[in-house]
């Protein structure tokens, strides 16, 4: 390497320089350093209180109605799935959970899947899980197979819980680290009928900071919000009422 340098400084021809570069072997310098062992103390979770029933409670398939009351049918209300979740979008216990990234509906089967999967994986002595969604309450109707149009609204088939994007579905906490719970939380999240991810308080804080940075440092002056609010290009002609509310961020 040193020899190469000396030769090049003598003002050699370009052909020679090229040949030396061709023959040179990429050198990788590895600096080894040795330090004193440091075993930092593990994080304490003494402030976390584990409730009496650490596992997720059983959710009913059908909501309870007083006897004598006919179960009411309901409109489809897709607006309950559209847009961001304004209320239940943070972790109460500030530890770990599953967050929905898109809108959708949770059926009783999904609840059972979550309850059993999480119940199997958590250690009830030091971990607990809580529901952050209601048990299924919205009735969905179905007409019999092969039925023609008309004849009134169909009968109630099953109940669902509508979910908006950003909602926390389940929270897991206790004397545990994110690495322990991430595995099974992600598995459960993948099985849900909408895009979901396993989150921790750190992840959510980081995401919030990054979102602020992105908003502040975006070099594109013409954001969707600006364009829609100022009717650039006549876009308000084809915008839906939801676009006026969500400004292109959500469907």
């Amino acid at each position: 390497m040193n020899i190469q340098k000396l030769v090049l400084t003598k003002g050699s021809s370009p052909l020679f320089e090229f040949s030396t570069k061709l023959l040179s072997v990429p050198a990788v310098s590895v600096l080894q350093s040795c330090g004193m062992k440091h075993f930092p103390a593990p994080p304490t979770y003494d402030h976390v209180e584990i409730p009496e029933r650490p596992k997720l409670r059983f959710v009913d398939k059908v909501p309870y109605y007083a006897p004598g009351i006919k179960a009411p049918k309901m409109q489809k209300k897709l607006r309950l799935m559209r847009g961001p979740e304004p209320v239940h979008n943070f972790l109460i216990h500030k530890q770990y959970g599953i967050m929905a990234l898109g809108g959708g509906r949770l059926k009783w089967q999904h609840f059972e899947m979550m309850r059993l999967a999480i119940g199997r994986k958590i250690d009830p002595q030091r971990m607990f899980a809580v529901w952050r969604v209601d048990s299924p309450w919205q009735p969905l109707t179905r007409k019999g197979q092969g039925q023609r149009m008309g004849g009134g609204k169909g009968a109630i088939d099953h109940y669902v819980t509508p979910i908006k994007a950003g909602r926390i579905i389940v929270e897991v906490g206790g004397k545990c680290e994110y690495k322990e719970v991430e595995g099974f939380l992600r598995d459960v999240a993948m099985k849900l009928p909408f895009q979901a991810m396993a989150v921790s308080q750190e992840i959510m804080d980081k995401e919030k900071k990054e979102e602020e940075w992105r908003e502040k440092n975006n070099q594109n002056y013409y954001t969707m919000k600006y364009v829609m609010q100022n009717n650039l290009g006549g876009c308000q002609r084809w915008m839906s009422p939801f676009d006026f509310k969500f400004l292109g961020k959500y469907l």
Partner: protein
Amino acid sequence: MALAVRGILRERFYPVVQAKRFRGKINIQRPKPLHFDRAVFTELTKPWYLNPKRLKTPIELCSKPTDKIIEDVDNPYQRIIARELRERFDQSRLIAFYHRNSMNSDQQYKAYVAFIKAKMHIKTYGKKTLEMAVKDTKFEPVLDFYVSQNVMVFSPEPDIKQLLKVTKKFPQMVLLAAIFEGKFISKDEVMELHLIPNLQTAQAALVQTLNSATTTLTQQLNSHQNTLVSNLQERVKQLEEHK
């Protein structure tokens, strides 16, 4: 004029209000592909950011990023060791610094034993620990020696003879410098101190040097008398032998 007014009154204007409802039934799970216009708007309003590397010089880009190196902020064990080292520095009257060339473990152990027998302690510390111990003290120049494999020998007694005797047996231990009674001394100075037998002899030598002027003067003054006395004594001896 009256005819014009009547004409205006006859032409009635019926405003037409057409309520337009938006048919917004979407499938949230399987969204419809975007209309071309909306797709164009989406593409044009995509955010873009300035490259963080744009204002960096080539040397900043090519050299290793220092902010990625995670250094332990505080190691309690290291602090304890550094404190112990500091105490050793303060309590030992002789501290020798060596560069250690590669040695067998057997040789290292033999060196350790030899020093223990001479009532000295051989110690190896890392640079970081040493920095923690001696920074902002009078011993700070020690950090300049610490480049490669370094070893320190602490002795409660300032016994240079013993130190050099043991060091001779292990040629892989190269003496660099020492601290003698709280003062830094180089290797040459160590050799000089080695030649001095003990304090009393050194004091005697000092006294002799101080008195050298007067002693030479008296010697020169008494030289003739001394030669006469010595010659007479010899003569007395000769005469006694003859007898």
